[in-house]
């Protein structure tokens, strides 16, 4: 049971309603209504805690109109813990059942309770989806106009579904890989990396890599690249082949009990004491994974372990910068020129222009903003062109693009406009939701092809190209 009135009141009082969060809130900007701002939402939550307002349908809708992007927490000088407030409010909305409908309850049970608590089942469903997409059935069905038979909601969502990859993380990554060991024979590997010539430090760093859910099904290549860049920097990498969902989806959607259960399972699987760091490469997951210490602070069996976990949890970019990652050298072995002079060899190769879109939960949730840029700047032949509003939400926001399609679409359009205006050929981002939202948005818009990728993919490619 998690409710606003049971919450430590000082968390609510922390907001002194100065309003400095307002200009950073995408939903306030959209409507200019106080209730759609962090300050307004906190006022509603406080009214509930004070017994001045009942948990109503309108309150429930408001809590889910919030993107949960946490831009307000970066803007807040008072240090309000908005993430906890929002999670508590959503849990209260679910307990009160003010938004309940048979369809919504069914979808919630199927996703939160069935699919995203069973990693093997999730992979099986992913495999079926892959068959549907790869076999040509999907294309056939689309040509035949069969999609028009779907209800309007599903018809809209169908093209947004991620393209499932042929191999999932456990088929690309061995449970333990060390810098010296031969790589797994992955057949059609995304990356032709054979050896990792980085000298291993005296005592190699041991790290665990978290593979995620959507990341595992749609972007296993990003997980592979994450392992590759860690290996290239002398880490011994442990990647459990079957990992539970981290519970972020559940915590963000008011299913507090499942979030607790999944956090405990994660801690049972990976003992933080065994590792120097636990690595996440998805902004949304990482933001929640970092909060395990707080989430389980009053669980006597898990509190200490969860605190140790939070202390060792690192975003991949953050960790690479922390261990002073090796900058890739120019293809052909020559180092990039030290001064501004450009060598004749590189001058003929046009630089790739890359822009960076910040995952909200990476920059606002985890305060990791400079490190991904440091990695992009270290890539030979890459020029980083900043786009406007790189920290403004793209509208993906977990499942927001499903629950609030109109607002999500406007944010997507705004984001795609800024990405295109930067003139970049590639947009890098570090969260699967943003990745899909950008891919879909760019595909729907007109203009030159812009590729969406993850910074570690580019780094892994640069290491591979060294030889």
């Amino acid at each position, binding site marked *: 049971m998690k409710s606003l009135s049971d919450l430590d*009141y*000082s968390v609510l*009082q*922390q*907001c*002194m*309603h*100065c*309003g*400095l969060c*307002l*200009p950073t809130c995408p939903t306030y900007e959209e409507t*200019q*209504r*106080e*209730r759609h*701002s962090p*300050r*307004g*939402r906190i*006022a*509603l939550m406080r*009214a509930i805690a004070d017994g*001045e*307002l009942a948990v*109503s349908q*309108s*309150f429930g809708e*408001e809590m889910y109109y919030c993107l949960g992007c946490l831009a307000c927490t970066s803007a*807040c*000088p*008072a*240090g309000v813990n908005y993430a906890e407030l929002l999670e508590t409010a959503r849990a209260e909305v679910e307990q009160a059942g003010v938004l309940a409908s048979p369809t919504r309850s069914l979808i919630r049970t199927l996703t939160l309770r069935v699919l995203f608590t069973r990693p093997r089942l999730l992979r099986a469903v992913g495999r079926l989806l892959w068959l549907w997409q790869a076999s040509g059935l999907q294309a056939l069905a689309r040509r035949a106009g069969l999609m028009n038979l779907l209800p309007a909601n599903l018809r809209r969502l169908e093209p947004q579904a991620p393209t499932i990859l042929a191999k999932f993380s456990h088929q690309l990554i061995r449970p333990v890989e060390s810098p010296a060991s031969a790589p797994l024979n992955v057949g059609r590997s995304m990356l032709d990396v054979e050896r990792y010539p980085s000298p291993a430090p005296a005592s190699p760093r041991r790290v665990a890599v978290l593979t995620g859910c959507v990341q595992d099904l749609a972007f296993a290549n990003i997980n592979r690249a994450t392992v590759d860049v860690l290996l290239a920097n002398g880490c011994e990498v442990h990647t459990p082949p079957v990992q539970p969902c981290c519970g972020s989806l559940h915590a963000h959607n008011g299913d507090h009990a499942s979030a607790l259960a999944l956090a405990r399972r994660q801690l049972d699987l990976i003992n933080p004491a065994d590792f120097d760091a636990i690595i996440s490469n998805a902004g949304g997951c990482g933001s929640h994974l970092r909060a395990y210490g707080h989430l389980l602070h009053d669980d006597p069996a898990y509190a200490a372990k969860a605190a140790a976990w939070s202390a060792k949890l690192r975003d991949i970019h953050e960790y690479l910068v922390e261990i002073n990652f090796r900058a890739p050298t120019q293809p052909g072995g020559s180092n990039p020129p030290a001064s501004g002079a450009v060598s004749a060899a590189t001058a003929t190769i046009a630089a790739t222009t890359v822009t960076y879109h910040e995952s909200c939960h990476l920059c606002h949730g985890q305060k990791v903003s400079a490190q991904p840029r440091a990695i992009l700047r270290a890539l030979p032949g890459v020029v980083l062109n900043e786009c406007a509003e790189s920290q403004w939400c793209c509208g993906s926001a977990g499942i927001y693009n499903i629950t609030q399609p109109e607002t999500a679409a406007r944010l997507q359009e705004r984001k795609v406009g800024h990405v295109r205006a930067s003139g970049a050929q590639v947009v890098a981002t570090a969260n699967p939701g943003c990745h899909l939202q950008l891919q879909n948005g760019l595909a729907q818009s007109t203009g030159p092809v812009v590729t969406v990728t993850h910074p570690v993919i580019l780094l892994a490619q640069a290491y591979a190209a060294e030889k």
Partner: protein
Amino acid sequence: MSDLIAQLTQRLGTHRVLTAREDILPYGFDGTATLKQLPACVAFPRDAADVSFALKLAGVSATPVVTRGSGTGLSGGSVPLAGSLVLCLVQMNRILEVDTANLTLRAEAGVITQKIYEAADAAGLFYPPDPGSMKISTIGGNVAENSGGLRGLKYGVTRDYVMGLEVVLADGSICWLGSKCVKDVAGYNLRDLFIGSEGTLGVVTQVLLKLLPRPAARQTLLAAFPSMEAAAETVSAIIAARIIPCTLEFIDQTTLRCVEDFAKVGLPRDAAAILLIETDGHPAAVADEAAQTESLCHHHGATSVRRAANATEATQLATARRSAFSALARLRPTTILEDVTVPRSELAGMIRAIGLIAQKHALTIATFGHFGDGNLHPTILTDERDHAEMHRVELAVAEIIAATLERGGTITGEHGVGLAKKPFLRAQLGDASFELLRLVKRALDPDGRLNPGKIFD
């Protein structure tokens, strides 16, 4: 009231007239601690004609009207009355004209202050007033409260940049006051009457602002001091040296630690006080003033003086300073902010008095503010649910006010009287001046419809 809501809805549409509890509850407060009331209705006018329409309706139904922008006020000026109609002007947010021939800018009242600054900057011009909340405060709110900011020492306050106003009066008539003329003495200067009137005399719907050429150069210095007195003496020395920096800000240790926890801009956490100093103007003058200021700081015991390396760092430091009040909320749940201002020669004495009052009532009072203006923001850190402590807070506030008035100061330098400072106004003004305010109010708003109960009863 229901008739008023029906007619407003008919004119503005349902999405511009809010009455549901979840919709209006977040309009029950502004940036001031502990004050809240539930209005009956919140309406979003599109122009002066809509405002006029609403005021006429309010006249018929005898409904009090409270005007509001972004609700960042710090004296309770835009806290609604129970059952009132709130006119929220944030949708009147167009910049109507940037006149580079006359160096003016005309905007609707709901334009965000930062946007005004940026529009001027884009034309190579400069709008100096920069209240702490400029990223979200509205220009109409700035005019209503006559807001100051960090640049007040050299550039003055909002009033100094208002050349003209469009105002809707209580009876719904729409007036234009002022002009683009630098000199204009036609009739009483009624424009100035509305600046700082806190929504009690009329509703400001448009502003005509004076702009300046953008200064060619700026330099920001951050000086750390081992004591508050050393910082205060440095300020006196700078002024005595005939240097008028654009910004001369003071932050005490409690405040600077909170600010650093939030902004992480490298403030010296061990300093007892810091001064943030910015000089601007011709590059040669800036270089000279910066060098002189730096040496004055060292001469008066500064433990370090840091020069901002570039404009980005300077902006970071100024932004960090602007977050001071909100950052203090990290320490205790309730932050009671004062705005007392004394003649600059009285600053050191005033700082000492605040320290003694804090000690006497066993309270934590953090102080920051605009040292160059004599405008201090002693902030009492407390918890509104602790009734015993809140009683001591009341006593301390009264004593701070008394100490201010003894020194020829004012109860509010830039936040306005609103609700928070109302009990102390008569003591400052004296009976005759206080009655004159009421006379003006009665003349312009005979039925007491506009923001009643603010400034005075």
